[in-house]
């Protein structure tokens, strides 16, 4: 039983899969009668007893009893999470955050930009759109990564290509890579996008700057451009203050923000 909002729900790791040298995918299942509903783009607070909690995006669409997460080993807690085995307990609190603007996607050309582990939460959206192909007009996915080995979910590109155009690029590579080389902006140069598209990006803040320079005021409207922000978080419910950007809380107002929401917010896009 959950008796106050900081007590997480116990769940189990039912599958685990290495996604890249330092990333792991986990499938998580709650006990039978536990209700867990979420929107694509929301995140959960994940904890293991003895270790603290960390915010982690959900990577699947809300269509099954289980859900998946992808975790990069970055520090204390994430290192522990990636060491979990099938059958281990894992503790989940949430879901938290606003999620993607699904309503606005109706009939639109959608562009998804994922750099590095930014693909984790966006995969939830891709899968959702894959399940609901009728609602949007077209889907373009730009994926960038350091090297071919750290291109996460590449196995699924085939599946995605059934309903989307997928373009990938890597910063550097060995001889076996025959795709595009260069950072993610290289893809912007090579592939024209439709004017009036809805664009959603997740990755390190630096790419947001190039996206703004490139598209705002040209092909994308300010309120059609969405960024996911990443901040330190301790509570997930708008109390601890770690995730604030000016007036906004990444945990409750975000993590998905439209550009016009944050363009004057000096802390959001710093």
């Amino acid at each position: 039983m959950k008796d106050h909002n900081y007590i997480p729900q116990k769940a189990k790791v039912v599958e685990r899969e290495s996604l890249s040298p330092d990333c792991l995918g986990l499938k998580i299942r709650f006990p039978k009668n536990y209700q867990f509903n979420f929107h694509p783009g929301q995140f959960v607070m994940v904890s293991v007893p003895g270790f603290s909690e960390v915010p982690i995006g959900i990577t699947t669409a809300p269509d099954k009893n289980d859900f998946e997460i992808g975790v990069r080993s970055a520090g204390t807690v994430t290192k522990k999470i990636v060491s979990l085995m099938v059958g281990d307990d894992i503790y989940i609190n949430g879901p938290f955050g606003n999620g993607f603007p699904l309503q606005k996607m109706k009939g639109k050309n959608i562009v998804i930009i994922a750099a590095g582990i930014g693909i984790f939460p966006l995969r939830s959206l891709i899968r959702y759109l894959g399940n609901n192909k009728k609602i949007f007009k077209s889907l373009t996915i730009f994926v960038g990564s350091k090297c071919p080995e750290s291109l996460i979910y590449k196995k699924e590109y085939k599946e995605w290509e059934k309903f989307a155009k997928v373009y990938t690029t890597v910063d550097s590579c060995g001889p076996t890579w025959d795709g595009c080389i260069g950072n993610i902006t290289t893809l912007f140069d090579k592939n024209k996008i439709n004017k009036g598209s809805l664009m959603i990006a997740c990755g390190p803040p630096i790419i947001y700057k190039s996206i703004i320079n490139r598209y705002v005021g040209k092909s994308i409207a300010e309120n059609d451009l969405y960024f996911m922000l990443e901040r330190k978080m301790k509570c997930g419910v708008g109390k601890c203050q770690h995730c604030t950007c000016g007036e906004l809380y990444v945990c409750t107002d975000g993590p998905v923000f439209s550009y016009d929401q944050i363009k004057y917010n000096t802390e959001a896009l710093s």
Partner: protein
Amino acid sequence: MNKVKIAIFDLTDCEGCELQFIALREKLLKRGNDFEITNWRLANEINSNGPFDVTFIEGSPIAETDIETLKQARKMSKIIITLGACADLGGMQSALLEKKRERDLLEVYGPKYKTNSLPPKPVSYYVDVDLHLPGCPVNEEELERLLSSLFIGKKFSPKNHSVCLDCKVAGNPCLFLDEGFCLGPVTRGGCKAPCPANGIRCFGCFGPIEAANLPALKSAGEKHNSVENIDNTLSLFFSKQDVYKEYKISQKKGKNVS
């Protein structure tokens, strides 16, 4: 499960920090199945030459044998943890100016004396350090936190707040206000503020907090203290720290300007 093999080496220092292990004795005995101390000169009759899973280094490397021990310990250990201010910061002894060491030795030992030692440095000057446990001496509870983290494989990090949090929570009167100076505001906390609790100002033994603002400390302290006294106190534990060196440089520049 294999027992974690722990080694504890003391270089040149007062050996106070390692006594904190003895202070934890009953608690540690409960975990007898999880670890064994295979090298501890102070407490073991027979000591292994390694390899070790976790090695604590106490003291600052000064004597030739200290540096030997240190390098050999690094080779034989998976994790090196500095135990206390001497290992972590170079200790108070490192406050003496290196270029005056020869003269200092002459003053104490006379002209015929030859030394085999080098000026005191933090351990990290010679070898890579994986974790730091600050303090002079290390705080018992923090050592306990470190060990319990170690046993479950959680990364330990020292506290990030200033001593003032510990101090306020303990309900101590603030000595910065009452007596005009204290290093608490720029010193890493976790110690539980025993010094202010007992009426003496913080000497900074946990080392500087991240982004310690020493010039601001100086201007706040200057009203009731000579800059010389402030510098003296700061030098005790901070002398080998980058913030302190930067502060000294900015001081010099400031003087030249005025």
